[in-house]
């Protein structure tokens, strides 16, 4: 039998740079309540959302992810040509193929980098980050651009008073490269397809075409809330343990921004130290699906809340149901 050579990678991987893009148009609750029967007070009380950002026609998924990707590369001090894999987490690419990542790699000038999309809804960033970490540690890639972007408003029923105020648009990115020790902890991830209908698209595309109706996102908010309180909290705890840390060693907590009330409830269960900085940007951004975690990271940098070497706990959870939690050391 012939022996094959294989690559060997770095002992660990590390996030080298962070970037995000938030759409220009800010829509507050009062504007939204012009066409749904709700109120600013009710929306704030039930979700924490004060305003959200909706993409305009020129803020396509490609445009938003490209800006986020460029910002992450600039933050890392790297050239696009240094990147040899591009991963895009999205569930709102309205074309089946080619993958957005391929178009993005060309747009950014990443040359012939391997490029593919990851479909894991609001856990997509965590799924893609886990893949990037594994690629770098295996030596399959040296520098990976991990981008998450969604335009949930393309699939939002603006007249559904249960969801219209939640969903929004945005993109975020990180650059992952080799390190002499683990800078991205083990991912604790998984899926529960028995709950596929809890958050779903009302019509598959073939049915939508046949009926001449657009599909929308619909969900059972209370089921999501209970799931977040039980299973997702457990996943978050296990992500801390998997990284070999104790809760008091966590500096920053960036949960997926599904609802500020979910964040409150998770914090009551997790009992993280009182001085942990917690992302709550849903109040200004709405729920941006896959991009909420990297947007949270970029906002923490913007607000000067990240000390170099800070440990950041992240957990994404959403349609599938799917979940992914991990701890990373930030640059």
């Amino acid at each position, binding site marked *: 039998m012939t022996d094959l050579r294989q690559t060997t990678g770095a002992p660990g991987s590390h996030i080298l740079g962070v970037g995000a893009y938030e759409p220009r148009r800010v829509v507050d609750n009062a504007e939204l309540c012009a066409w749904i029967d709700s109120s600013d007070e009710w929306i704030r*009380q*039930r979700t924490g959302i004060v305003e959200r950002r909706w993409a305009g026609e020129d803020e396509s998924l490609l445009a938003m992810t490209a800006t986020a990707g460029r910002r992450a590369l600039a933050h890392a001090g790297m050239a696009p040509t240094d990147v040899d894999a591009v991963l895009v987490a999205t569930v709102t690419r309205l074309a089946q193929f080619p993958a957005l990542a391929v178009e993005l790699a060309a747009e950014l000038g990443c040359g012939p980098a391997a490029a593919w999309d990851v479909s894991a809804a609001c856990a997509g960033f965590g799924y893609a980050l886990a893949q990037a970490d594994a690629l770098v540690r295996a030596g399959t890639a040296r520098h990976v651009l991990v981008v998450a972007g969604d335009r949930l408003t393309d699939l939002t029923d603006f007249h559904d008073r249960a969801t219209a105020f939640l969903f929004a648009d945005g993109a975020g990115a990180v650059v992952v490269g080799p390190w002499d020790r683990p800078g991205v902890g083990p991912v604790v991830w998984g899926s529960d397809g028995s709950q596929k209908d809890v958050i779903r698209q009302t019509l598959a595309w073939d049915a939508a075409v046949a009926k001449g109706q657009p599909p929308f996102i619909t969900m059972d*908010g*209370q089921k999501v*809330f*209970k799931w977040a*309180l*039980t299973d997702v909290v457990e996943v978050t705890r296990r992500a801390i343990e998997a990284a070999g840390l104790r809760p008091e060693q966590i500096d920053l907590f960036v949960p997926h921004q599904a609802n500020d*009330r979910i964040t409150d*409830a998770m914090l*009551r269960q997790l009992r993280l130290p009182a001085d942990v900085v917690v992302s709550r940007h849903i109040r200004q951004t709405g729920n941006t699906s896959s991009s909420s975690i990297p947007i949270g990271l970029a906002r923490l940098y913007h607000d000067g809340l990240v000390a170099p070497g800070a440990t950041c706990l992240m957990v994404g959870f959403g349609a599938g149901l799917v979940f992914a939690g991990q701890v990373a050391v930030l640059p």
Partner: protein
Amino acid sequence: MATATAETILSQLATIINEVVGAETSTISPESSFSDDLGVDSLSMVEIIYAAEDSFGITIPEEESKNLRTVGNAVAHIERALADA
């Protein structure tokens, strides 16, 4: 939990309600209405039910949780569930 009385259940449940919505435990009585007196909305109710299930080691089915209008209703349900366990 053979020794759990309505009084100890009420006290434990009041602590949970206080943690979730901040209502003072001293103001929580069996007559308190979750929505009208304690400011518990449907999301807070989900959290309270889950915390009660966890803390008492019981399950409260979703269809039954919808009928729990007062704290006393919840205490009675928990008491029955513990007796059946």
